[in-house]
C-alpha cells in the first residue's frame, strides 16, 4: 500500500476556551489511535506538552476565543497549519462560554470575584501574566479562516475518526446523519 511509504501528516492540537472534552473525545477513538499514529505525528499539543507549534499539515482547535491569548495562539496556529479544523461546539459557535455574551464583562468579573455567593474578601485578578478577557466570546472563524468545521459537544469519536481518515486520505470530510450533531 502506498500509504506505508507516504510521509506522515504533522498534526497539532490545541484547546482554547474549551473544556478538553473534544480532546477526550479524540482519545475516545480507542484502539484506532494505534492506526492513527501510523499516519500522523504530533507536534505541539496538550498530549505532547510541546509548547510552540512548528509547520504542520493539520491543526485541530478545540474551544472558542475568550481572551487575548486565545487569539494570539489561534493566529499562530493559522500561520503554521495548512489545514485548520474548528473542533467542537465552542470552536464552531462559541459554545457554552459564549452564553456570557449578553452580559457586561465587568459585571461578570464583579459577580464572580467580588459579590458572588460565598465570596469573601475577593478581588478581581489583575496579574500582568493573565491574558485579558475579551468583551465577548467568539467562534474561531470570526478571527481566522477555518477550513473545516466539526460541531458537537463534544463531536463523537466516530465523527472525529471520520474527519481524520478523510483528511489523511486527502478527501473533503463527509459526515452523514448521526455524525453531524450540534449537541
Amino acid at each position, binding site marked *: 500500500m502506498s500509504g506505508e511509504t507516504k510521509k506522515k501528516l504533522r498534526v497539532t492540537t490545541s484547546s482554547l476556551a474549551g473544556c478538553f472534552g473534544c480532546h477526550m473525545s479524540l482519545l475516545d477513538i480507542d484502539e484506532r489511535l494505534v492506526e492513527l499514529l501510523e499516519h500522523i505525528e504530533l507536534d505541539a499539543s496538550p498530549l505532547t506538552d510541546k509548547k510552540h507549534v512548528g509547520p504542520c499539515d493539520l491543526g485541530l482547535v478545540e474551544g472558542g476565543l475568550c481572551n487575548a491569548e486565545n487569539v494570539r495562539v489561534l493566529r499562530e496556529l493559522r500561520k503554521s497549519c495548512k489545514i485548520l479544523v*474548528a473542533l467542537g*461546539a465552542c470552536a*464552531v*459557535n*462559541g*459554545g*457554552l462560554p*459564549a*452564553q456570557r*455574551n*449578553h452580559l457586561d464583562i465587568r459585571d461578570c468579573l464583579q459577580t464572580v470575584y467580588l459579590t458572588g455567593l460565598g465570596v469573601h474578601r475577593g478581588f478581581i485578578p489583575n496579574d500582568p501574566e493573565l491574558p485579558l478577557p475579551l468583551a*465577548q466570546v*467568539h*467562534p474561531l*472563524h*470570526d478571527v481566522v479562516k*477555518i477550513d*473545516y*468545521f*466539526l*460541531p458537537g*459537544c463534544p463531536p463523537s469519536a466516530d465523527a472525529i475518526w471520520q474527519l481524520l481518515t478523510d483528511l489523511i486520505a486527502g478527501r473533503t470530510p463527509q*459526515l452523514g*446523519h448521526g455524525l*453531524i*450533531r*450540534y*449537541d
Partner: protein
Amino acid sequence: MNDDRPRFTLDDQEVAFTPGQTILEAALAAGTYVPTLCHHPEFAPHGSCKVCTVRVNGRTQSSCTTPAHPGDVVELHSEELDDLRKSLVQLLFTEGNHFCPSCEQSGNCQLQAVGYELGVVSGHFNPLFPTRPVDASHPDVLLDLNRCILCELCVRASAQVDRKSVFALSGRGITKHLVVNAESGRLGDTDLAVEDKAMSVCPVGVILRKRRGFRVPIGERKYDRRPISEVALDEAEGERR
C-alpha cells in the same frame, strides 16, 4: 394503478398531483422531501422561511405557497439552490442564540434537523449574539426567545385554533421579535394553557413545557434516530391516510 392526474417535472422526476396541491405538498406526496421550517400541514402556507425555495420554470418561488401546474419544470436541488438554502439556515443560526448542547429541544428541533440534512456544520456568518429575554413567568411554560426563528406558527395556532391570540410578531427587519398579548409583556399574564395548540407547534426550542425537558434523553429523540427527510415523508403519508 392508472394515474391520469396532471404532472409536473421535479428535477429528473415526473410528479403527478391533485389540482389545488402546492408544489411542496405534491412533492411530499410523491416521496420527495422538501426542506422547510415555517410549513405545517394543519395551517395555511406562510412562505416566510424560504427554505423550501425552488425554481419554477426558471423563477424562484416558495414551493409551499406555489400551486402545482401541469407541465411546470421545477428545480429543487442544484448547487445554487442547495447553497442558498444552506445560507438561509445559517443566517437563522447566527441571528439568534442557538447553543444546542444546553437546549431542551435538541434532537426534536426542526432547525437543527434541517441543518443536519443540508450538511450545515457551522454558522458561516459572524454571529450576532443578540440580547434576548427568557420569560419564565408562566407557571407551566418557559419562553426562550433566544431561539425564535419568527415562523409565526405559534401566532397562527393561537389565533386560528386556540382563539386566544397569545402571540404576535412586532417590529421590522432585524428588530422583529415575538411578543405576547399582555400589558405587562409577560407570558404569565396571558391565558396560554398547556393544552393549547400553540404549545405544540414551535419547530425550535422557544415555547417549552416546564419540568419535562429531559424526559426523553438526548440521543434518543425524534431526529436523533432518523433524519428529518425520512420523518417528514412518513408524517406526510400518515396525514394522507
